[in-house]
């Protein structure tokens, strides 16, 4: 039969608290993963957009250059060449500068994401540590309470055992004399013959006279 002992109750409490801690850790871990994934996707999206925008600007710059070159038909070929070269240099410079900006923004974004993830990880670590301490504290308190209660139960059980012993002792003493009497009467009554009885009577008389001096009493 299943018996609810103090040790079993204590162990059940430990298991429940440990299960709750595992569940809490799991929830935090999934939250962390989710947050990280979200940041990563945002970062990728932003990079993509920036790349596209950079391409658009570069394409636009090139278009402008071609237009300028086309509109400057009246100028000499040399001037055209110089102008084209200058404009190209400028365009390259702008594109280079823009790609620097894009790279810088990308770096900043990575750093920011990293920082955010790091902050999140630190925050999570802190929360996990706090939870650990809280759970540990609860387990200690529970252990102390259980130990005290188990000690008290043991003491109560000892007292009950002593009380039961005393009751059994009293009951035995009350009945054992009657039992012995009964057994003696039943056994000797059936076992003693006429001769045995006569012998016992004469022997009792003789010893009584020797010990007590029957002639003084009778």
């Amino acid at each position, binding site marked *: 039969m299943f018996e609810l002992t103090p040790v079993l109750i204590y162990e059940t409490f430990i298991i429940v608290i440990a299960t709750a801690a595992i569940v809490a850790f799991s929830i935090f871990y999934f939250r962390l993963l989710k947050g990280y994934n979200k940041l990563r996707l945002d970062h990728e999206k932003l990079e993509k957009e920036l790349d596209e925008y950079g391409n658009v600007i570069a394409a636009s710059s090139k278009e402008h250059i071609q237009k300028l070159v086309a509109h400057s038909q009246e100028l000499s070929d040399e001037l055209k060449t110089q102008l084209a070269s200058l404009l190209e240099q400028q365009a390259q410079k702008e594109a280079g500068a823009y790609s620097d900006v894009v790279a810088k923004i990308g770096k900043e974004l990575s750093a920011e994401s990293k920082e955010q993830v790091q902050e999140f990880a630190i925050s999570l670590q802190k929360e996990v540590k706090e939870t650990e301490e809280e759970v540990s504290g609860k387990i200690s308190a529970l252990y102390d309470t259980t130990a005290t209660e188990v000690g008290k139960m043991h003491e109560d059980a000892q007292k009950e055992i002593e009380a039961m012993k005393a009751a059994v002792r009293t009951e*035995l003493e009350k009945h054992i004399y009657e039992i012995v009497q009964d057994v003696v009467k039943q056994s000797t009554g059936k076992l003693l013959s006429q001769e045995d009885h006569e012998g*016992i009577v004469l022997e009792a008389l003789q010893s009584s006279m020797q010990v007590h001096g029957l002639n003084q009493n009778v």
Partner: protein
Amino acid sequence: MDSLTDHIHTISDRVLCLQAIDAYEKKLFSPDFTVPESEYASLIEAFISDKKEKEVAIKDLRTTLMTMPVLRLTLAFTPTKEFIAQLATTLRNTAAKRNTVVEITTDPSIVAGLQLSDSGKLIDLSLEKKVGQVDIGSVVKKYFHFV
């Protein structure tokens, strides 16, 4: 007279003897009267045959019988006549009280042995008393260590 009283052990014996004495006394006054035969008839006849004053002798005999001390005995069994005689003789010899008669009661509850009662004093020599003198508590503790 001792030879007569030696044959009287119990109260019943005494009653029978007194009845025989009454019969003999009656015969003194009625010679035609026939004394019933009994164990004590011959003893009484032998006692009074050599007495000059038979009436006085009978009277003395009767008085002696009536004043015989009574010892009340309780036994756990029904004794035989022979045992009663043996018991009475033992009591008379050892108790230094001659001419005592015993009144026997049977009580199986005393288990074995006997109880003597004389003038209100009780001497319990029964097995029931011996069992009662045993320290049952110490016996119990010897076998039941948990108490």
